[in-house]
């Protein structure tokens, strides 16, 4: 695209040209400076607000001169604001449009913040969204490490000894290890993190209370005694009341917002005119 063409498409160019035309037309029609027709009032509250915002940035109140500048700036802003509105510059501005939409959405969503669930509503919500609140299964166990290359018959000797109540220490068969000898009630994520992938899965097949195995980890063979195996479950509402409440509220806010939108939407007939295919391609 050459420069001239690009300039022609540039919104800024449109703005300058358009602005020029408007001002030219305006001065041609009015001839002289117009008499003031609108009043701008900068009241004590507005001035206090100006002083406060200065304070928050500079950590001190404005001097008299600074305050007078702030007021002049406020007047300037107000004048520009009114002229801009009069010219319709608030229309078709992405930033302004987005901000207005944000404000509308905020109004509905902040309304949802005040909602209180009716009796039974949270219970129903928990049932309907059970999956989001489920707790993973957990296992607690004790392990004895036998190394990577222990022969199956030797493993059986140690296992038999353990099953008949012997307490044993690391020796030729039982290897010392930094791996925790006793692992508290934990999820697969934690246990597999220490022993390698798939370890939890193997543990979950063992019967609690008795020594069994071998179970193979990333390091080698282990004999295992399961202390506790807590299956996955959905907690009762009392246990997770706050989480369910937050979840319910978020969903409520979403649905209210959607409902509100649909209500507004009903007031409009929307027509979408697709550009013809050739025009799209030539762009």
């Amino acid at each position, binding site marked *: 695209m050459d420069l001239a063409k690009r300039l022609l498409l540039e919104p800024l160019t449109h703005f300058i040209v358009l602005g020029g035309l408007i001002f030219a037309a305006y001065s041609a029609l009015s001839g002289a400076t117009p008499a003031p027709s609108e009043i701008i009032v900068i009241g004590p509250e507005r001035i206090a607000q100006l002083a406060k915002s200065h304070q928050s*940035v500079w950590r001190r109140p404005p001097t008299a001169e600074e305050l007078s500048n702030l007021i002049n700036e406020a007047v300037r802003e107000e004048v520009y604001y009114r002229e801009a509105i009069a010219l319709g510059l608030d229309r078709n501005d992405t930033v302004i449009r987005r901000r207005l939409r944000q404000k509308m959405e905020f109004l509905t969503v902040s309304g949802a913040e005040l909602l209180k669930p009716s009796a039974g509503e949270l219970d129903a919500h928990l049932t309907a969204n059970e999956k989001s609140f489920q707790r993973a299964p957990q296992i607690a166990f004790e392990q004895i490490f036998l190394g990577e290359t222990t022969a199956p018959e030797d493993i059986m000797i140690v296992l*038999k*000894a353990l099953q008949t109540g012997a*307490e044993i220490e690391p*020796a030729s068969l039982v290897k010392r290890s930094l791996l925790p*000898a006793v692992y508290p009630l934990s999820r697969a994520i*934690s246990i597999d993190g220490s022993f*390698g992938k798939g370890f939890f899965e193997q543990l979950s097949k063992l019967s609690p209370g008795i020594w069994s195995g071998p179970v193979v980890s990333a390091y*080698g063979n282990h004999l295992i005694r399961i202390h506790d195996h807590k299956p996955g479950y959905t907690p009762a509402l009392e246990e997770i009341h706050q989480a369910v409440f937050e979840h319910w509220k978020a969903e409520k806010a979403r649905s209210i917002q959607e409902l509100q939108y649909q209500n507004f939407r009903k007031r409009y007939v929307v027509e979408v005119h697709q550009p013809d295919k050739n025009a799209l391609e030539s762009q």
Partner: protein
Amino acid sequence: MKRNIAGEKMTLQKLATASALAMMIAWPALAQDTGTATKKSLSSAYTGKAYSPYAHRSFPERPLWGDTHLHTSLSMDAGLFGNRLTPRQAYRFARGEEVISSSGQAVRLSRPLDWLVIADHSDGMGMISDMMDAKPELVAYEQAARWSEGLQAGGDSAVNAALDLITTFSQGQVDPEMFALYSPGSKLYKNLWEKVVADAETFNDPGLFTALIGFEWTSLIKGNNMHRVVIMRDGSVRARQVVPFTQTAPQGSPDPRDLWKYLTNYENDTHGEILAIAHNGNLSNGIMFPLEAQWNGVAFDDTYVSERNKWEPLYEVTQIKGDGEAHPFLSPDDEFADYETWDIGNLDASVAKTDDMLAGEYAREALKRGLKIETKFGINPYKFGMIGSTDSHTSLATADEDNFFGKHSGYEPKANRMTHPFMKTDQGTITGWQMVSSGLAAVWATENTREAIFDAMERKEVYGTTGPRIAVRIFGGWEFTEQDLNSRMVAVVGYQKGSPMGGDLRARPEGAKAPNFMVFALRDPIGANLDRIQIVKGWLAPDGKTHEKVYDVAWSDDRVPGEDGKLPAVGNTVDIANANWTNTIGASELTAVWTDPSFDAEQKAFYYARVIEIPTPRWTTYDAFRFGIELPKDIPAITQERAYTSPIWYDPKS
């Protein structure tokens, strides 16, 4: 610790006999058959000491893995370089979920982290992400509107906007009123901080995943890095009573003493607890660990030394922008000292590095300097434990070589990232391949909660790795024996007879000649075998000079040290073309009881363990393999990853 019935160790034969015997004896009868209560049976039931070795234990069983230093799109630089992932996505990723990275690639950790600190830069926090969203309060300012438009346009416009923004900032030409929006004192900043805290609360799940609340204080003095990550022990009630401390005046300050004042005020006002962790001394041009004077040339005083000791219990020793344990210039006898070294200059490469700066930059030298300063002030300002963390700016805490997502979103996996200049000035160049896929922090905490993790950090029972999850324990004492290694629960003996990493050696018992250290290392369950365990000793001689020595204390494959005392290399199984290696060399677990052979009871000293893995492919090798490109010759293909423990100190006076 003897635990078997017979009171002696069981050999294979005895085990076999015991099991045969036990089978002949009938199983004790049911529960109600407890026999008659006699004085004897009752007194043996209340011996005062638990028979069960699992009872009454309050020491940590396994290290909890985390990252103390992760940036999200809220950090100005992260946002500028294209990070679009929020703290919420960062938490999801850390706890093991798959996310789509800012460059549009699906990514997931090999295993979740146990905990995370999101530490976004406090200066200008949230400004860039708001610019991306064209937040009305922000784009009301001309500069912001201009940059916002550029950033939103993407491609070259975004790059140009980012560059213009950086230049404007570095020249101090930013609209102060606009910047004040993103500084303490503004309502917008307070709201943002509340959001940061609220996100941490949402993802903090005690026992399963811990989200500690924190931020990074980004002090930069003429391009010299003085950054600290700040971490709170507390939840939202206390965290919301403050906003982060910044380095920009008038609200903030780049002087660490002002940071310490902020930390003091936090604890006084909220009754909470807080700490700071410095990092990247290697980019400080010598001002991170000075010997005599502060960064501004003012001599140390009691306050400086004691406040630093109080507020900075840890140092981040390894991360993406270089490894900071040791430097070959300072440790010429240490063959492993030159690891992922970044020593061209300071943080923005505006001033080149000179040799005299190095002693104020590296952790081992700082630990030595600390001993020396302690003799003058009675307090050691550099008595720190060591951790690793990522300092990743992608919202993705990736430290594994085979899953490395780079320093910032511009360096997420793509074919040319390793040859692309990362930073370039007239003083030097850092190229993409020099990024280090490092590191992680391991914490020996009793449980996975904010309180337990923070407390472990305070007592320095933590260590760092360059990425792999190597389990390491070290205990220092006076009476460890080889026999102690045979316990099935090593920690019981360790805590009973000695001090864990981060602690002080107990008072020397009468007649004890030298301290000994019980040390264990276990490879990452899905990682490479171990080459060796070393103990690094530093000490202060009577003439006021400091010294160091690295000892090999345990190694794999029955290697025999040469006549010079040097251990032969472990070998190498890395297949560069296929980015692969095997665990056919090295050991899965190493352990030793080591006694200091040249101990002098009159000299202050510290000891820490360094564990070295066998060689494995560096991230650059995985890149070359996956993108089907040739790895340029001058780019390293192989790495030997490692773990650094916090030291254990010896003081003649204790």
